């Protein structure tokens, strides 16, 4: 397994916002087909990690690699062209566009291709989305917005799907449903890297996990390993 090239990896990545040091020597390796989660408390640097993958934030040292190629200097759009797509924190749909337009623009990098099978796939995962196609995205409920945000990302047929706190602001039932869908997406062949605070939920479907604490990776293990880890249980799984 380790002899393969990771589809996505960080090698000693450091990032700064101005003088503030956020990510500190972060190493991450994600292999094709895996489902990996990044856990950590508020302001630990989870979103910053995703922003660094897509190039919104440039590392001050270290490398970001996609399929073994150093993309640290690439602009965002080109990295996306490599098959990495993100479902951003708070969904961030194009609120003034319709649901249909949101999905359509998700496939922006596949001009001229027939999208009908992609729509079908999205509708199969999220039947509600089909009923709302003509509605303005900004008027959807939070749960529906999450579905459309995931649908929009899937329309790009990503190789690697990045998700920033998909459970944020959702009712527990919806969270469970959502993770089930994420699992299905992963089983169908998409590599998934999911950032979560809800560690229990994330680890229940993930293969592996990283734990981030004030910008440092403090734990790195299989999902079972993390679930069993006493330190982990105390800090993140809500046990005393």
């Amino acid at each position, binding site marked *: 397994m380790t002899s393969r090239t990771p589809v996505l990896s960080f090698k000693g990545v450091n990032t700064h916002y101005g003088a503030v040091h956020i990510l500190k020597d972060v190493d991450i390796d994600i292999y094709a087909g895996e489902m990996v989660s990044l856990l950590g408390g508020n302001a630990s640097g989870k979103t910053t990690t995703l922003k660094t993958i897509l190039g919104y934030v440039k590392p001050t040292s270290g490398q970001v690699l996609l399929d073994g190629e150093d993309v640290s200097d690439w602009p*965002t*759009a080109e990295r*996306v062209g490599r098959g990495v797509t993100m479902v951003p924190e708070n969904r*961030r749909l194009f609120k*003034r566009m319709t649901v249909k337009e949101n999905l*359509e*623009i998700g496939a*922006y*990098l596949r001009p001229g291709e027939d999208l009908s099978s992609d729509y079908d796939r999205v509708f199969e995962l999220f039947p509600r989305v089909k009923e709302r196609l003509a509605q303005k995205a900004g*008027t959807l409920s939070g749960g529906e917005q999450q579905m459309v945000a995931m649908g929009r990302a899937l329309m790009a047929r990503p190789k690697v799907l990045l998700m920033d706190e998909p459970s944020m602001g959702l009712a527990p039932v919806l969270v469970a449903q959502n993770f089930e869908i994420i699992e299905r997406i992963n089983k169908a062949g998409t590599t998934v890297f999911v950032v979560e605070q809800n560690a229990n939920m994330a680890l229940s479907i993930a293969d592996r996990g990283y734990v981030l604490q004030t910008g440092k990776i403090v734990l790195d293990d299989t999902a079972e390993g993390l679930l069993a880890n006493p330190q982990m249980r105390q800090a993140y799984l809500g046990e005393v």
Partner: protein
Amino acid sequence: MIDLKRVRTFGLIAGGTLSFVAAIGMVESFNERTLINPGITMGLLLILGIAAVFGYIVAAGKPNPLVETARDSRSGGIAGGLTGAIAGVVTSLFVLFVDTFDVSEFFPNMREPLVEAMTFELGVPVGLLVLTAVVTATAAAGGAFHGMSDSFRAGMSRALGWVVAFALFELVVSEILDFADPLVDLIYAPRGGLQPWAAVIIGALAWWLSTRYKGRGEAFTERVKDSEAGSRLRRSVILFGVAAVIILPMIVGGVVNELLITSGLFILMGLGLNIVVGLAGLLDLGYVAFFAVGAYGTAILTSPSSPAFAPGLSWWIALPIVMVLAAIAGLFVGTPVIRMRGDYLAIVTLGFGEIVRILLLSDWLTPIFGGAQGITRIPGIPVPGAGTISGTDPQLFIYFTFMFVLLAAYISYRAQNSRIGRSWAAMREDEDVAEAIGISTVQAKLLAFVTGAVIASFAGALFSAKVGTVFTNSFDVLVSIIILVVVIVGGMGSIRGVVVGALVLIGILGGPKSPGLLAEFSEFKLLIYGALLVYMMLKRPEGLLPSVRRSRELHGEDLTQDAWLDKGGDFTGDSAEEEATT
């Protein structure tokens, strides 16, 4: 039920408005234009119009989509009349003030002529009573009008509209009817203004037509829009439009053609800026710079007396070179500002526009651009078999303008409905997410700047050939602002909107340097632009003729805010209206 608080508020506002238009000298200068022969001047129309509109507004009550306002012409008339009375008294007090105290040192228009104009030259006590009575009566009529039956309202507004249009646009009408001189003499008085009985006939005819063909217009539009049955009809409508555009310049005279050309140049620039601001969402306040590049580029390349370098090319050869120059200028402005957003972008582009003007004027570059003297002797557009065509030939020059407007409209249309159009829409909403979808916002922004710049350079090239001389004062910041106003008032992102916006604002009210069809407005056009802009922002932010996308963006929320009223969640706007009317 009369809402006395509303009457008081709007009475005071109406009085303030009337005093204001008097104070700035609008009534006086409008009085110089007679609309209907003896005595009905544009100034009087202004006073009556303001009174009637406020009377109507008060009678209409506060707009509430869920409650149908009671329509009752008696209480409407009373409410309007009361409003008018308040307005009349306020205005009279103002006129009295002007008559008593001399403040003309600070307010040059607040002098004797103002008093004369507002008292209908009847002197203070009598004239003020007449003014109050007239304003009261008109406002009462405006209020009562609100309560009239629909067919009366339709007939009356058509009749008034047509009479006012015939009176205001005397120049166009008499030029169109030029072939039938006696008819023109019948309609209009020798020294201007509609003949009274002509006004009556036009009004009656308009009323009769509105009842005779009630609803036909809508039905026709429906038929044309209908995709299948309408396709042949649509073709004939388009054919008719094209024919009208081709024939119109031949039958109207030089003055109107001149106005059409100026409007055409602003349509061009409006379409270009619409791509930058309306589609890509980049607020560019220095757009005039690209117009200047087009104009000066053409001047240097074609004029024999260009100071430094005078290749004396033909306009047609200069054009592609100028387009390339404009594209480079677009990149030049676009590249440094690519990372800026919103207000910062606006300020920087504003600066760029001014820098270009100041450079053109500077001593340093005078050897190339001629400084304050500008560049003269720019030849027209050479046409095989017809010599060179310039502004002295507006009847022919207009066709070039049309041609480029058509080209720009086509470019806009294609851009809007293409992949790049969608990427602009996404970028306008959320730049970061647009990037996450794979849109290169750097490319998208530069493309918008370049396309906009090239379209502005068409306008510049035409402008040079038309006027034959270019000076820096044709390119000041006011031009940028006015183009932006055209785009906003017409409807951001809407091609039709820009066309109509430019025709109305530039053609009728007047452009930054030239009066429009209603020359009376030219002194006040900036005021009117400003007022219009504020009104549009508050009441109709999507513009006069909005694009489908914009109006949805701006108005979809109204519906869904009330969505909780509907338990099924399957809310449609219609059901609320039904509830309201039953």
